């Protein structure tokens, strides 16, 4: 004999039962109840109808080209990201290279031109101007190297 409030308790669980989200203990309890209660068994059948229907919903189909489009898009995006990373690395390296060239090259330049500068009447106050011109030349060399490297990378990536 079922308790009067047991029907409500059981019905509250039926949705979860058809969703397969109940413990074995409750499943057994529901099975025992529905075997003797026609109303709750009918209610369970209604839930099962919904559950079956949801499982059999037609699968929407994506456009046929989606697979190819996705592959191409992923490849292009990853290539672009790799290029960006390479460019960033190259830029950082060239920055270091240009500074190193400027700072290390200056004493060598002074040493090499030590005897020549006084003849050209270059004085101490003009040294800063000379250093600026020297820096500009070394940075120009650095950026030329960057452009050449970038062109080289582009040629390497170009499809044959």
């Amino acid at each position, binding site marked *: 004999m079922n308790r009067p409030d047991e029907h409500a308790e059981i019905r509250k669980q039926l*949705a*979860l039962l058809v969703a397969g*989200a109940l413990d074995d203990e409750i499943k057994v309890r529901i099975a025992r109840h529905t075997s003797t209660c026609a109303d709750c068994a009918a209610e369970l059948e209604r839930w099962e109808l919904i559950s079956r229907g949801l499982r059999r919903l037609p699968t*929407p189909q994506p456009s046929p080209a*989606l697979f190819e489009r996705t*592959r191409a*898009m*992923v490849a292009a995006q990853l290539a672009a990201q790799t290029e960006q990373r390479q460019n960033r690395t190259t830029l950082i390296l060239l920055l270091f290279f240009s500074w190193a060239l400027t700072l290390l090259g200056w004493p060598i330049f002074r040493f090499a031109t030590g005897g020549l500068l006084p003849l050209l009447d270059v004085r101490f106050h003009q040294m800063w101007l000379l250093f600026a011109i020297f820096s500009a030349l070394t940075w120009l060399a650095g950026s030329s190297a960057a452009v050449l490297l970038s062109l080289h990378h582009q040629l390497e990536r170009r499809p044959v």
Partner: protein
Amino acid sequence: MRLFGASIRITDMAGAVASLWEGRVQFEGALEQLRRGDLNALSALIPRYQNRLYRYLLRMVRQPGEAEDLFQQTWLRVAEKIRSFDASRNFDAWLFTLARNLALDHLRRIRPSSLDAPAGNDEAGETIISRMASGGPAPLDQLLARELSSRLAAALDRLPLVYREVLSLRFEEEMKIEEIAAVMGTPLSTVKSRLRRSLEQVRQIMEAGDQGEARA
């Protein structure tokens, strides 16, 4: 004769197990290949998940074009993050989590109102079914011979996002409750209460529609 039949059945079962095993090995191989940066692995992975992932995204955003864009974004994210994927974890749950996060970001940008939480507390004790009239001939019975699928799909479409999502993951993707909890990032109890409420709402929508039709 019976012995012959049994031996055929055993051979069939062994064949099925071997083919499952082979599929699993190929899948693991494709993941490893992708981890090494070989994009050819996508040829094995995308078709395997194509319909499921697209269906899930479509349930989330409801627009085919947007679902296809998100599908592409998801695979891009997979290719970017595959090295951080822990192979001991479930790939399906990881993939659907990535897709879910992208879909939610997209909806947050495009249609923030679609992310509104459904009315009522997930954990509340009172359920819609407890408020439904019980006994008597249920209108749902009359649906038996009608186009159940299209009506269910329409009902599903009218649900709030969290309910559509949980139903899709459980009934269409056939994920376990634990997997759904992992994808949604919620406790098991929340998944269960969302499942119950979503099913109740589907039933309520269908029965309301049927009663409306009966009156008309």
